[in-house]
């Protein structure tokens, strides 16, 4: 019985520890724990552009990425199976962020995510698709409306995991 209780206690402690680690990784990711928090450990953000690698000149990047200047490292490599070219970028100062922060609009990499997405559109389509101003009626308050409004403000700065 003692042994069984010990096993249960051990399991509970391990489960509790796991929960604590999960919560901490969301709320307060430290640079010493680079993986998780909805970002890769390496800091690279990557999009696959449906163009040959020879068509993407890292010395003449589309304006949204070129504007970062020396703050940015860039890499390209052919995607497998004819899927195009993997265009990667990361900020040299490697800022930390959290998944909650990303949802709340305080993602330090948000501008880079947006720039990568716009650069991909410029290379593939030749222009960045705009949605606003879209016709709409009166914006009265609805349950959840404020949250949605906040989310739609930050939603365009995604599209790159």
């Amino acid at each position: 019985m003692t042994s069984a209780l010990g096993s249960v206690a051990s399991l509970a402690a391990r489960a509790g520890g796991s929960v604590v680690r999960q919560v901490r990784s969301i709320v307060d990711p430290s640079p010493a724990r680079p993986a998780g928090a909805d970002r890769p450990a390496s800091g690279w953000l990557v999009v696959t552009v449906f163009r040959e690698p020879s068509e993407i000149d890292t010395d003449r990047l589309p304006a949204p990425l070129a504007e970062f200047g020396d703050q940015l490292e860039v890499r390209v490599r052919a995607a497998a199976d004819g899927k195009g070219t993997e265009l990667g970028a990361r900020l040299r100062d490697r800022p930390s962020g959290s998944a909650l922060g990303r949802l709340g609009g305080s993602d330090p990499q948000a501008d880079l995510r947006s720039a990568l997405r716009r650069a991909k559109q410029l290379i593939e389509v030749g222009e960045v698709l705009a949605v606003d101003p879209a016709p709409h009626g009166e914006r009265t308050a609805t349950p959840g409306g404020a949250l949605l409004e906040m989310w739609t403000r930050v939603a365009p700065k995604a599209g790159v995991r």
Partner: protein
Amino acid sequence: MKAVTWRGVNEVGVEDVPEPKILNDRDIILEVGLSVTCGSDLHLLGGYIPAMRAGDVLGHEFMGTVAEVGKSVSKHRVGDRVVVVSFIGCGQCWYCTQGLWSLCDNGNPNPGITEALWGQSIGGCFGYSHAMGGWAGSHARYIRVPYADQGAFTIPDGVSDERALFASDAAPTGWTGAHQAEVKPGDVVAVWGAGGVGQMAARKAMLMGAERVVVIDRFDNRLDQVRTHIGAETLDYEEVDVPAELREMSGGRGPDVCIEAVGMEAHHPGPQYLYDQVKQQMRLHTDRPTALREAIYACRKGGTVFALGVFGGVVDKFPMGAVMNKALTLRGAQQHGHRYVPEILDLMSRDEVRTEHLATHVLPLDDGPKGYRMFKEKEDGCVRAVFRPGR
């Protein structure tokens, strides 16, 4: 201009909104001829897809006349009569070039919402919430259509507006289900849901050579439409045991392909409906997968189940054991309409696809709230309420 808008949960309005403008070189402005309610709109009205803001213009299935063209549009001219696919695809990304148009990388300007929900964002859709891009809908006098060379298709002379309208969404969605489920000659195909999408999935399955196609619903007038206009067999799920009937109809095997064209608000006469409804209302799960469960249960060993009805989030009591142990193929998709519309319009011009019977009620925009009420409550045998903005 006048438009039918989402005002809140179960609240539809008619109000004046600004006219759209060309914002990208590949845009057209379309004067809407006809714009139709869709079953998936009911998920927005019911609050089950909580990404609508008061004032959003509803509608994603439409046709009309080109009123203005952007400077990079090459396929269309002012005055062309076109039908527009409800999903927005660029035609240039890998997904579009693979024919997986609803997965377009570039058609949703608000990718963050669906990325958080599903891991990746998919393409945009007109009038279908800020999660799908925040695009204004088609229940209005005018609508802006981006990537118009890809998404707008000229309607052949001789195909009526009322028929071509359903080449926007119902028909290509049905085509997506039957084609992507890889229906083969000789197959027995079961389709849950006798609305526009279910009827079109059944029609495509028949055209692909299915030996028997059986459509399941509970509304007599819809089942009658299936028999009369589609030529498929029917089952009323309130009258019979559906899996048992399907086993009998397929030599004891079960259907080779099961297409679920119902989605997140499925009904069922059994106690599981009450269970799913309670959990959905308490937000313990987002979608009621009653028909999907039955499709998985009914499907033959090694068969294919296709989720064509709209699901938004997570479901409960999902029969994973049946999926795994019966070696089922489980697939799903929004519509990849761009690849199917030319074929559909051609078949419409030869009377091999007929859809005008779906438009049971044609109304002016001022009747937007009434049209949605009739559609939702199936009043007066309403299968689809269609709005004619020019009326």
